[in-house]
């Protein structure tokens, strides 16, 4: 059985790696907390488990997925950020989930920037969007900091209320 790839991306402060079963506690805690209100939560433990297992499965099925965000020298997962393309998604997405203890550190920006570049380079994506709840001002601010702009003409995501932010294309970076 061929194992699917486990790429690692290094940034100034972070090591971004494929998520492992050891990352599940933080992810489940996040999805069960109010912090997940803009990304389908808060969820029951059962649903939160599905959400995490689905992140692992995304890698198995597509050969890529959200990267676990870790700080250099500490393998603890602080969030899941990166290329994301579940069934039902109209377009490729750069998604970000960051645990509360890593908010305000700029890690989400650093990880989103690096995984977007990786998706353009390694997966050959020509464009990417982020689907964001209109009430999620933090996430909107991050999208804008990443150079993404609102694209109201784009097909809606799985949640029709979500705004679509389109990232600069590879040639624009």
């Amino acid at each position, binding site marked *: 059985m061929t194992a699917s790839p486990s790429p690692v991306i290094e940034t100034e402060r972070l090591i971004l790696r494929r998520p492992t079963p050891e990352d599940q506690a933080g992810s489940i805690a996040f999805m069960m907390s109010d912090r997940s209100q803009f990304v389908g939560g808060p969820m029951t433990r059962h649903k939160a488990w599905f959400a995490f297992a*689905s992140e*692992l499965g995304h890698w198995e099925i597509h050969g890529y997925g959200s990267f676990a965000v870790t700080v250099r020298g500490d393998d603890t997962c602080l969030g899941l950020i990166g290329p994301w393309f579940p069934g*039902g998604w109209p377009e490729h997405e750069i998604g970000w989930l960051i645990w509360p203890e890593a908010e305000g550190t700029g890690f989400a920006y650093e990880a989103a920037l690096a995984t977007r570049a990786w998706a353009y380079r390694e997966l050959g994506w020509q464009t990417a969007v982020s689907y964001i709840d209109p009430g999620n001002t933090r996430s909107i601010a991050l999208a804008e900091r990443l150079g993404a702009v609102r694209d109201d003409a784009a097909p809606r995501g799985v949640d029709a209320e979500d705004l679509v932010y389109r990232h600069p294309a590879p040639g624009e970076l």
Partner: protein
Amino acid sequence: MTTAPTIETERLVLRQPRASDLAAYTAFIMSDRACFVGREHSRFSAWKCFSAEAGHWMLHGYGPWAVTLKGAEETVGQVGVWQPEEFPERELRWLIWDDAEGKGIAYEAALAARDFDYRVHGTRTLVSYISADNARSIRLAERLGAHLDKDAHPLDPNGLVYRHPGPEALS
């Protein structure tokens, strides 16, 4: 990281689920009959279940297989053993696409998956969670030698729990 080993039966190959299996899985989950397996009807819910099943292998070292007829690429269902968070017990579960029903495929795959779990993982007991109105699945559970276990904890108030014969009973 663990992925599904390939196992063969007389007519079937049980293998690791892959991206090309998603369309058939989604069609099944979104069909009316899939309400028997308690799913929501959206492509994203279907994706969540499908990808979580692949993730289950990595988390637990066992999980549901994609079922194909020997020599065929496309799936006829997904069958295997799993225990998502908050499932009271380890479950033997079968999903068989409509056009593959009535051929004994689910029986053959479920038997192989149960045998594998007892033999390779040393599991002592397995249940199947079945809706009370899913007569087909109940018949299959009975054909597999499982019996209604009224003392076991169901998944939902209207659900039934069928308990499979353990490894000793089958040897």
